[in-house]
């Protein structure tokens, strides 16, 4: 087996430790920035929905500011965001390079995307349910938690699924600030040194990660849709 692998993917087999380390960096970046982005994205998505002109806590000022901010950050290409945020990253994390330095830009790149996804998931909730909850004497916050969030669990999971998959893609660019990860590994060896087998192996690993996210999400969606 080892012989076979040595023949077909020699360049990968010569540096398994490095591959392993890069894989760890990708996982680290996806989980840490993903978890933080989920919290903020969910929060902003709820605020956008609640303060919208048809929301339960209408507020033009908050809605407009948040809406514009999301648009601005969504329109900045991630590679530019990575470098543009260097001063802020240095202030918050203490360093702007390495895997840690990539976390903040990843969050800034993911939160606006996830916020929009959550906003559209919550918009799927039938307005009749909101009206029914109001008629039963629910307060705006009760409506947010007991109707909007509870009723759109499948939609929220779907949003998480899409966001995590796009986050895996974003981490590949973290190499630009020395963040490491599988994308960086593939560029350094597969692209720069022409070790094609490295590229293929990283692609396969990322493909497996994406499939896992996809199937876990689909399983939860199936279980929560009635």
């Amino acid at each position, binding site marked *: 087996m080892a012989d076979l692998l040595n023949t077909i993917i020699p360049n990968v087999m010569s540096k398994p430790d490095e591959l392993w380390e890069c894989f760890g960096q990708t996982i680290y970046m996806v989980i840490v920035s993903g978890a933080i982005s989920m919290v903020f994205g969910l929060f902003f998505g709820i605020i956008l929905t609640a303060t919208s002109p048809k929301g339960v806590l209408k507020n033009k000022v908050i809605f407009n500011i948040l809406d514009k901010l999301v648009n601005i950050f969504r329109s900045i290409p991630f590679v530019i965001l990575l470098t543009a945020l260097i001063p802020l990253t240095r202030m918050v994390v203490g360093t702007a390079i390495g895997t840690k330095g990539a976390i903040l830009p990843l969050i800034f790149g993911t939160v606006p995307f996830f916020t929009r996804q959550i906003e559209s998931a919550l918009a799927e909730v039938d307005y*009749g*349910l909101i009206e029914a909850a109001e*008629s*039963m*004497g629910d*307060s705006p916050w009760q409506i947010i938690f*007991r109707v909007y969030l*509870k009723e759109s*669990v499948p939609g929220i999971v779907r949003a998480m699924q899409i966001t995590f998959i796009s986050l895996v893609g974003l981490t590949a660019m973290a190499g630009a600030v020395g963040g490491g990860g599988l994308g960086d590994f593939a560029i350094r060896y597969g692209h720069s040194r022409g070790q094609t087998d490295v590229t293929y192996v990283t692609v396969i690993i990322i493909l497996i990660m994406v499939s896992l996210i996809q199937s876990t999400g689909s399983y939860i969606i199936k279980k*929560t849709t009635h």
Partner: protein
Amino acid sequence: MIQLDHIVKTFDTGADKVHAVSDVTLHIKSGEIFGIIGFSGAGKSTLVRCINLLERPTSGTVTVDGKVLTDLSAKELREARKKIGMIFQHFNLMRSRTVGENVAYPLKGSGLTKQQIKAKVRELLELVDIAEKENAYPSQLSGGQKQRVAIARALANDPKVLLCDEATSALDPQTTGAILQLLKHLNEKLGITIVIITHEMAVVKEICDRVAVMEHGNVVEEGDVFSIFAAPKAGITRDFIRTTSNLQKIEKLIEDKSPLVALKPGEKILRLNYIKKNTSEALISETSRKFNINLNIIFADLEIVQDAPIGGTVAIASGKKEDIEAAVEYLKEKNVGVEVLENG
């Protein structure tokens, strides 16, 4: 129970203003079933939403069970709403919750223990006759079953008022009948005041005690259902009644010169409308005997509204001219509306 005073609701749609409800004053008594009928866009849905302030009126006051809702704070209003149940055309059940959880929804924070809530849910589901579906999800139910669950949910906090917004409009006629019977039963058993919004006169005829007819944001006619049916004043009311009665068909027959209404000289086609609660008297045969004329009934359309027959008959009268005239006078004295539709 419900007092609406000079309710005005205007929607600002940017360029122009839409007067959904303009100056409506209504008093709905405790324990009655009150219908509000109108075509779409008449403002009836907006008006019913003004009762529990889902829509806040632009001006006017809403009083329910002695509380002036329009003066309450947001928190007090939420408490007051718990005593005003509401059901909807599309049921508005929560898809992620089972039937039991849907009914338990408004009981959260009511101070009941889990056990008490469970017992209450059971009792409510039995009341609306759907106890066996407690653990099903709404997507597994038919329309009629969904509406029963919605009614159980609306009754969870023992409300004094139940608002029904087109509650049977998405149901087939048979299911509509069953749901209306259930509402009537709840009204009698619990003494709950029911407000029904509908565009179907058949619904009003079936269970309402009183009715208000709405057009262009105004109440154009209001009264007990029998008198409205017997003697509609507004044009729109007549339009609505026509939708439930066959008596108007005669005009079409006459126009088409149907052999059914071909007259011999001296004969007259009469339309007799029973407008007072006295149809039980054998008026047709009595008139026929007394004035020595024949009354050949072409068709009749009689319904029971509020325990009294209403409707009328279309008949061809034949006999001596003065006898027929005397008979017409006699019927009018007996409070029968008589129209001569055609002279032979």
